[in-house]
């Protein structure tokens, strides 16, 4: 479904701040794969997300979705296939617009935006049904401005908006990291059920080791711009956090260093 071939990315090439963000990344996601990504600070996890979504262009290598190369496409055109939830709960929604207007924009993913009503009666009905799945009562607040919602509510809405048009690829970039534990747990639960229900091919960066093991069918470990370990489903099932950390240390030669890391 998603394929990265020999992707490399350098920041500030030729300057004293030169930094290898990704080096010769090979990654293939099969349809329905739910891959969790862990790694230390500066391992290249976010760069990986940005390369796939088109925010950044790789210096070398190719990104393919469904066998077609999308490397030349700008971010907004790739959005046709890629749904994304950002770490910042404020990033995925438009604050001065209403909940239903936000959903209407998400609803038009990958389709031309013409002069038909953004929120028609039929669409409103659909939005209400979708919002019910979140179980937060947002279906009764369709006309509330999103800026009035809490961070958790906004992130739940972002998740719904990113997924309800069934994108080919779902990118989750530490999307629970900015929330308090209770809300993070809620978003994690929602993520799990939505991904399973819709069989979305998902790539999720997380700093929560326990979450990385519990969710998904595959786990990738990154360090210094490389994928250093790719754990398949059968091995992942019995994995524990200490084992994972030990494995990381053994391969990379240093401890997993992340100022936000949560061991679960």
């Amino acid at each position, binding site marked *: 479904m998603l394929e990265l071939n020999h992707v490399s990315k350098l920041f500030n090439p030729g300057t004293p701040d030169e930094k290898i963000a990704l080096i010769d990344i090979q990654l293939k996601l099969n349809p329905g794969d739910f891959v969790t990504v862990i790694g230390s600070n500066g391992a290249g996890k976010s760069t990986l997300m940005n390369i796939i*979504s088109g925010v950044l262009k790789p210096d070398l290598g190719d990104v393919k979705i469904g066998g077609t190369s999308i490397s030349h496409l700008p*971010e*907004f*055109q790739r*959005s*046709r296939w*890629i*749904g*994304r939830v*950002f770490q910042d709960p*404020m*990033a*995925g*929604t*438009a*604050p*001065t*617009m209403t909940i239903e*207007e936000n959903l*209407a*924009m*998400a609803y*038009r*993913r*990958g*389709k031309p*935006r*013409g*002069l*038909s*009503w*953004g*929120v028609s009666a039929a669409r409103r009905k659909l939005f209400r049904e979708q919002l019910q799945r979140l179980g*937060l009562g947002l279906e009764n607040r369709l006309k509330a401005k999103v800026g009035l919602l*809490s961070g*958790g*509510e906004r992130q*739940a809405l972002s998740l719904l*908006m*990113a997924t309800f048009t069934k994108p080919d690829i779902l990118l989750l970039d530490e999307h629970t990291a900015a929330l308090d534990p*209770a*809300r993070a747990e*809620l978003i994690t639960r929602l993520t799990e059920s939505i991904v399973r229900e819709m069989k979305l091919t998902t790539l999720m960066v997380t700093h929560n080791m326990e979450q990385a093991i519990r969710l998904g069918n595959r786990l990738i470990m990154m360090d210094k711009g490389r994928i250093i370990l790719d754990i398949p489903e059968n091995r992942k099932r019995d994995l524990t956090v200490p084992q994972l950390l030990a494995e990381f240390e053994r391969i990379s030669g240093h401890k997993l260093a992340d100022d936000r890391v949560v061991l679960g």
Partner: protein
Amino acid sequence: MFQSLTGAVELGLMYALLALGVYITFRILDFPDLTVDGSFATGGAIAAVMISHGYEAWIATLTAFAGGLAAGTCTGLLHTKGKINGLLSGILMMIALYSINIRIMGKPNVSLINADTLFSPIDSVTWKYILVLAIVVFAIKLLLDAFLHTDKGLALRATGDNNRMIRSFGGNTDNATILGISLSNGLVAISGALIAQDSGFADVTMGVGMIVIGLASVIIGEAILGTRGVFWTTFAVVIGSIVYRIVLALAYRAEWLKLESTDLKLITALIVIVALVIPTIRRHYKQKSNARKRTAELAVSARGKGGI
């Protein structure tokens, strides 16, 4: 007294389209567009030249609209494709338009005395004048409202609100920006065309300071009526434009102020400053009390270990 008030309402309605244009760029797109000073005169110039050459006034006004659209498109392209700073793109277009406007007119000003304008059939009766203007302005306002609630309009609003978000849903923010600036300057140009027809001439300097006047109208309207939703805010902007003209008329009538017509720009600047400062102060206090309320709520829910 009454006459100067009705005059103020008339002017306010004509300038309301300018204000709606400035609202699109300044508020919706969050793009301070200075093209306005040029495109306002472009609208006036196109209308005046065409009418004085015998074209129907409504055709001349529509062509002025097209001229404004074109000017705005250029600014939008400079900013999005040329990656030129927003303010600078507007200033560049404003300067360029000064020469273009003289080219359009062939000279620095064109008279419309004795020509048939949009207002010729109605200008003998004041209430008719105001009524027709009000209907036209509100029709345009409603069209704009409707547009801002279509799929395209939503994408335009999101571009100003959170462009990262709309890009992640496939919205082309460059195109939305160009469309918004273009539409804005189209409205501004219609406003210029109306003013030229009302005052009986177009002059290359007629656009000077229009950005501030538009801004004053937007800010005054929002300060008086608030900003819940697009429909309400565009209404507030139209009202703001009228109130601005009434305030000016009253200031001129107060003889103890000894105001000259050349003091107009100073008064406008003062009005904008006052209108900008008051909401800031109000917002400050509101935010403070909101923060207190919200913190108290959170404290309660933390004690009760509430959900989301």
